[in-house]
């Protein structure tokens, strides 16, 4: 593990230099143990693909004190075999108005639309980190057969809940935003909800499974979500 200073308020712990599930599991394990240790002066932690940023208050602790404490903690990190995260199921209505680019993705892959849906929803995706937008998950493991280049001209408005493919990645837009990904479906779940930030639907280290649903089911879940 490499320990690096980020100004006078941060310590970056680097566990590797690749996008790798084992490394990312170690990142999440280390992150959990740092939070559990509730070390004085730590204000928050930000796990990423292969690193954890530990933010601190320089009036309470300092770089040297914290680095040695974090080094100590890192020794207990295991080989990263166990996942530790939750499995979160995300219902998705594929195609049609919910996923206007599904036909393009299918054409690009030389497959039928339902095959693309089947390929996209048949595997679980690890959340390597959250960023870019509140609740935007960086997911790993999109099947090569449906890799699709981004739109040449990004859309100025993508509806909240849109599920898309951008190159070798897939992801969900938790809130309305501009973006250049190919949109293949939409979830009726409210992913961006300030009221739920204390208990988010998913966190880095969790695994997402997309469950195909019909338009009727989409509207039904949507209505239930509105009531909450």
């Amino acid at each position, binding site marked *: 593990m490499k320990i690096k200073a980020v*100004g006078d308020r941060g310590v970056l712990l680097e566990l590797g230099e690749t*996008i790798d599930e084992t490394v990312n599991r170690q990142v999440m394990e280390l992150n959990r143990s740092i939070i559990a240790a509730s070390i004085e002066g730590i204000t928050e932690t930000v796990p990423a693909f292969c690193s954890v940023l530990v933010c601190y208050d320089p009036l309470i602790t*300092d770089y040297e004190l914290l680095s040695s404490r974090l080094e100590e903690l890192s020794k207990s990190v295991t080989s990263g075999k166990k996942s530790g995260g939750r499995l979160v199921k995300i219902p998705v209505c594929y195609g049609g108005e919910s996923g206007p680019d599904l036909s393009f993705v299918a054409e690009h892959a030389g497959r039928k639309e339902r095959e693309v849906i089947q390929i996209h929803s048949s595997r679980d995706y690890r959340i390597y980190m959250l960023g870019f*937008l509140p609740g935007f998950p960086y997911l790993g493991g999109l099947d090569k057969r449906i890799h699709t280049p981004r739109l040449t001209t990004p859309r100025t408005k993508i509806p909240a809940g849109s599920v898309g493919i951008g190159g070798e990645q897939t992801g969900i837009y938790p809130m309305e935003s501009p973006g250049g990904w190919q949109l293949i479906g939409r979830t009726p779940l409210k992913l961006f909800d300030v009221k739920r930030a204390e208990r988010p639907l998913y966190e880095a280290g969790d695994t997402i499974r997309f469950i195909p649903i019909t338009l009727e089911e989409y509207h039904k879940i949507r209505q239930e979500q509105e009531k909450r």
Partner: protein
Amino acid sequence: MGLEIKLPGAFTSIQDKGRRGYLSQGFIESGACDKYSMAVANLFAGNLSEPELAVLEFTLKGGEITFTSDEVIALAGADMKPLKNGVPIPMNRPVVMRGGDCLRLGMASKGLRAYLAVYGGVTVLPVLGSRSTDLKSCLGGLNGRTLKTGDLLQSGKSGEEIKRFAAAVSEMDFKSLAGENEPWFINPSNPFRYSAEKRYVLLRTVPGPQAEAFTEEGRNTFVRNPYQLTADCDRMACRLNGPPIEIGKGADIISDAVMEGSVQITSSGLPIVMLADHQTTGGYAKIATVITTDIPALAQLRPGEWVTFQYVTAMEAVKIARKENKKLLELKKIIETATGKW
């Protein structure tokens, strides 16, 4: 009751110390760009135990505010030539505004961002523990947006409390206590190192976390040459222009967390320094991080102005941060003594 925005100014939002604790979920921090001036304004406005209460942040051009009840205010940061009912009032001092009084701010004559604090703070509903406006996700502040004409704001103190503090303010005596020759006290948010007389503003940085992604020559270029602020500067970041920094191996890193002050180097070798509204993660290598103490200086610079960078260690930066905090505590003591107990 409170403040009515008659003219909002060029770009005015409610900010406090920022939304902390939600970076891992992708929520940006927001908060005042110049937190030192925010604290100074709050201290002078009587928020002695809460220098991080919500304030108004004006950028480049201030606005016009009518007070619908008595309030005590203070301004710090950029000098926008404040007028009370047409008469100039000082910055960095508590000022009593009576119901019906009008505060008018003009163009900043020096610096970029002015902070208006009110005794009791601006009391919009906190979102995720902060009143800061997150303009990207449209949350916090007043409906997640910049202020506009007709907006009504309230302070967090009762009429009785305001009356007591206002009485103390009118009897205060700063001059005899402070010694006016101390530059940081005359203009606490513009210590001499930020002053416009010097051509270059010095920004101290801690090398890393990806300093090794650059050649030794690149790392030297960064601290041996001045860089100029481009027009592309906002609450998110300042893009700089100057001699390109030579990149070694791996300038495109696997995305990791970004902090306020992070100096990212783009593929063309030019630095971008992150400010309060920076994204939470990024994939550019970061050559260094501007220390917390010097971020306010950068936040007060305008496009066309110049900075130079210097390396310090993380431990030196921590020491500097503590020294800076002592200055605020000293100022707090001076204000306490000047206004007495109220």
